[in-house]
């Protein structure tokens, strides 16, 4: 085959351009530390990375929701615990009134004390968290949930749950609506107890205290169920955090350039390019003219 000047030039240029292009690409990967920057770099990899990014973003929202829910749950749980303790205290105080030696005056003063406790319970249950009623259902601002009128407590909230999304499939409720607290009958039994104390009626008092014990149990039940939510949430939080770490790892594997690998590539490409340049310059000088 005749090898002509133009063929020689064309092939040489093409190969040099190719080498330069490869060098440029490698340099680009090193400079940006990314293997995939746009869809056409690697369509399949790109879409995988984008999906992972999307899942990561969603999970971060879930994580934020979980963390905020935790605050709400812990606060509510503390309040419930506090109320429960107060109720237990009230019962123990009231039990003193069943004693045969207890005088009418002492019962009256116990009644007074219990009225104070009732005030305290209602005040605790009317607490707000970040400006929202904790136990008012979804009526978080427009009304105070529990209203104490002499010994009668009325509930102004609703029975709705406040929900938080903590994963694609799971929506958890984070509140205890006040009607559940009403249903335990603590206010009714407290009223019963106070009335019995004030009426100096020991038999009624004994019955009332027994009722209180029942309400107490129901209240504790709410407390326990609620407390287990915190544990569950903790588990979910750990899982989401771990998943996110994995996502980040996958994303990095998929789209980040491995520096060592790229530098080694760059080195070998550089050598190839230099060799091409050198051989070209040597061969370019060679022709018959040098020998005529």
């Amino acid at each position, binding site marked *: 085959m005749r090898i002509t000047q*133009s063929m020689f030039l064309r092939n040489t240029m093409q190969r040099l351009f190719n080498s330069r292009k490869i060098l440029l690409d490698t340099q680009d990967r090193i400079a940006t530390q990314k293997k995939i920057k746009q869809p056409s770099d690697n369509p399949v990899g790109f879409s995988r990375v*984008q999906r992972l990014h999307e899942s990561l973003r969603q999970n971060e929202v879930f994580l934020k929701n979980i963390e905020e829910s935790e605050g709400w749950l812990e606060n509510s749980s503390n309040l419930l615990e506090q109320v429960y303790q107060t109720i237990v205290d009230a019962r123990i105080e009231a039990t003193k009134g069943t004693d045969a030696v207890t005088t009418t005056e002492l019962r009256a003063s116990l009644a007074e004390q219990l009225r104070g406790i009732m005030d305290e319970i209602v005040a605790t249950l009317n607490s707000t968290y970040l400006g929202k009623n904790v136990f008012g259902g979804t*009526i978080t601002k*427009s009304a105070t949930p529990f209203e104490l009128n002499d010994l009668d407590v009325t509930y102004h909230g609703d029975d709705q749950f406040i929900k938080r*999304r903590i994963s694609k499939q799971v929506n958890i409720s984070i509140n205890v609506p006040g009607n559940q607290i009403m249903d335990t009958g603590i206010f009714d039994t407290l009223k019963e107890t106070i009335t019995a104390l004030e009426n100096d009626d020991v038999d009624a008092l004994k019955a009332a205290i027994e009722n209180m014990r029942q309400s107490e149990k129901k209240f504790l039940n709410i407390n326990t169920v609620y407390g287990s939510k915190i544990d569950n949430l903790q588990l979910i939080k750990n899982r989401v955090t771990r998943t996110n770490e994995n996502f980040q790892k996958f994303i990095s594997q998929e789209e980040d350039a491995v520096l060592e690998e790229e530098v080694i590539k760059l080195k070998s490409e550089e050598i190839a390019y230099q060799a091409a340049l050198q051989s070209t310059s040597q061969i370019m000088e060679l022709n018959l003219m040098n020998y005529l």
Partner: protein
Amino acid sequence: MSISSILEIGKRSLLAYQSAVRTTSDNISNANNEYYRRRRVSFDQLNGGYSRLGLSVNDAVRLRQRFAEYQIYSENQFLGKYQNAQRLLSQVEVVFNEGSEAGLSQVISDFFGAWNDLAKDPESDYARNLVLDKAMVLSDTFSRIDGDLQNIKDQIVPETNMAVDDINQKLQLIHKINQQIRKQPNPDLLDQRDRILDELSKQLNIQIKEKDSGEINVYSDGILLVSHDVMNELEAVQVNENGNTKIKIQIKKSGYALNINNGELAALVEFYNESLPEYKEKLDSLARNLAEKVNEIHRQGENLDGSSGFDFFASDITGISDFRVNQVIVENASLIASKPIGGAEGDGSIAQQISDLQFASIFNEGTANEYYQTFLTGLGNRLQETEFLGNSQEMIIQQLKNQRDSVTGVSMDEEMTHMVQYQQAYEAAAKVITTVDEMMATVMQMV
């Protein structure tokens, strides 16, 4: 035979080798000219009746490698199409530069994230303003993409016109060269014509028929564009088809529409008529669906004051170009609904439902983000494929050019060898003349 006739032969040899060296120098000076075809000296015996009159040089012969040349013309059409398509598609890809934080998928996630915040804090004005803010960013992003695509589209029309003008000029030149060659063959004109054909075949799908005289007829889509007496100029016109403007390439004189399926021009026309509207429609569908689904849920909710039945996005959205938040909501963010009708202020279930749309399969391809990813991957695939085809096409053409040049290209070593050869022959011819001169002198001395 007389001594003086030997002088004549010597003179002719001198002239012949002079001319041969000229041809060689012509070849050398054009060694790096891609469109130059090597000339070869063709020596001939000059016969004058009974006696030989020495050497003569015919016109230098221009070498051809027709097979490779025609192959190049037909492969060039694909190269032009792929390369141009790649250039145009990369412009589209830049529009969706997802590496940046303002990429559409990020913006969509942020939008749904804002609804999630509102669901957590349905009583607050702040969360409503955040939702409005993110919705505005979303609509701005759609508008930006729309504007960018429109810019790309707008630039295609003048580019097509320029390409068509360029093609017309080349056709004119071929027309003129055809007429010249008809009168008088001229290798330099043929070089020029081959260069034009090479460029023209990259721009347009053409077929070439060459006549014995060297004139060529250029056809496209079976229509004769140029011969020695026919000259059909092309023009690009914009027509309206079902509300979409499309570019049509037609013959200026007759208005006959040409089917341009290869070359740079085809890439432009296809991109304008098919690819861009297709991409736009995919995004339009995304925007429409998104607005529709959000509105559907939003209408079922009410805000804190108990107002209900509002669309969140404008109700008449047709695509990304008119994607916008409902004006009443822009003016008054407190109209954003968060609770079901009759629900209490702490109930964020409507906001939650809207936020949950991000997980809902509202497209065949899945969620809004998956739909968009599928779109991007499709674009990336197409671009990568075009790039690959362009590169392999380039290799094919390079091979063909090498084939052609192995016959028609200039080899320096060969030319140098010829030069030495001709120079020596020239010296020898000169020696013949001096020898004849001496012989003549000898004859004279005899007198």
